[in-house]
């Protein structure tokens, strides 16, 4: 490779005789070396994978008028309490007289319970996803139908309470379960007095 020839045109009719007609050979090896060096650098320095993100919307702390508040039915309410050592406790309905049940973040722990509670919605979402694959549904229509299903009035409302002994992973896991179980109504709330009593009782 890499032969730069200066032959052409040197034998023109009547042209002067040039003294230097030797073909020049350029060694390209250093350039190739440099090329690979730069490739290595760029390969190591770039981040091709963009980080994933989970979008959350927190409730505003502005005072909400009494009539604007949505009151969840006791039968829909689920309260999760994230405790220490990756334990999670839950109860249904009202705080008064509630029994805390212990579970964990494994698929057959928290997820099973939430899916049972949210059975109707989860089933419809599953069907919709199957339909989407089958009929090659438009993404826009899919999203619209999805939000229609999720707006189900009877779907559970989940309150997530994290104790001071829980860590960030627990919180993200809990939020993730909400996504997996297609629960659209959930909120991270502070632990209030009645729940604090429950926690004290159980020594979480």
């Amino acid at each position: 490779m890499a032969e730069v020839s200066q032959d052409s045109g040197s034998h023109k009719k009547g042209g002067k005789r040039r003294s230097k007609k030797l073909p020049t050979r350029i060694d390209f090896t250093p350039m190739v070396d440099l090329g690979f060096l730069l490739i290595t650098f760029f390969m190591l320095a770039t981040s091709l994978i963009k980080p994933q993100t989970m979008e959350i919307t927190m409730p505003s702390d502005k005072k909400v008028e009494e009539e604007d508040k949505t009151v969840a039915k006791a039968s829909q309410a689920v309260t999760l309490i994230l405790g220490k050592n990756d334990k999670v406790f839950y109860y249904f309905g009202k705080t008064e007289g509630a029994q805390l049940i212990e579970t964990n973040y494994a698929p057959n722990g928290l997820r099973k319970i939430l899916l049972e509670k949210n059975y109707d919605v989860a089933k419809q979402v599953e069907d919709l996803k199957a339909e989407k694959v089958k009929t090659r549904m438009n993404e826009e229509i899919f999203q619209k139908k999805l939000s229609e299903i999720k707006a189900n009035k009877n779907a559970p409302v989940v309150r997530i309470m994290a104790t001071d002994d829980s860590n960030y992973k627990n919180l993200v896991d809990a939020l993730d379960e909400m996504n997996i179980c297609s629960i659209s109504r959930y909120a991270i709330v502070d632990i209030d007095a009645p729940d604090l009593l429950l926690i004290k009782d159980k020594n979480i």
Partner: protein
Amino acid sequence: MTAMCDVAFLLLTFFMLTSNFTKKEPVLVATPSSISEIKIPETNIMTVLVDPTGKVYFGIDGQDKRKQLIEKMADLYKVTLTQDEIKRYSLIDLFGNPMYAMKKFLNLAPDIRDLPQNNLGIPADSTNNEFKQWVKSAHEVNPDLRIAIKADEKTPFPVIKKVMKSLQELDENRYNLITKLETAPGK
């Protein structure tokens, strides 16, 4: 040889054009995994980094914006910074220092700047909430900024609560939690 050379330069061109450099982070955090598949946008991001010990780091993108931000903050906290220090700040992706230690931090050599003892964490307590002020000023400088929280798995919840509370007080109720990908069940 010619073919190899061609391929090498083709790859080089590809990497040069597609690359966006990995940001240098003062601490290594292991983010928790989630099934969320939303990608984070590349520009207009305000990163809040929380390390396992609970130190808060903060950074925005865009050098011009950073300059405006630090000028604003220096003004608010009555810290006088030289042009040189402001320029130095604009080159730092993430930092974690209270304002009183800012001047000292900026005058450190770049290679020791990321050491844990040189990053005290931005105070976010209710008595001295500099973090809140940073977020507020950053939004004034660039209203399009989106907030991304990147925290370590083992970060205790009270620290996260502190950060979330500060954001809530500013009426910043939508933000992103950076996670790594986990395959959704049943796929």
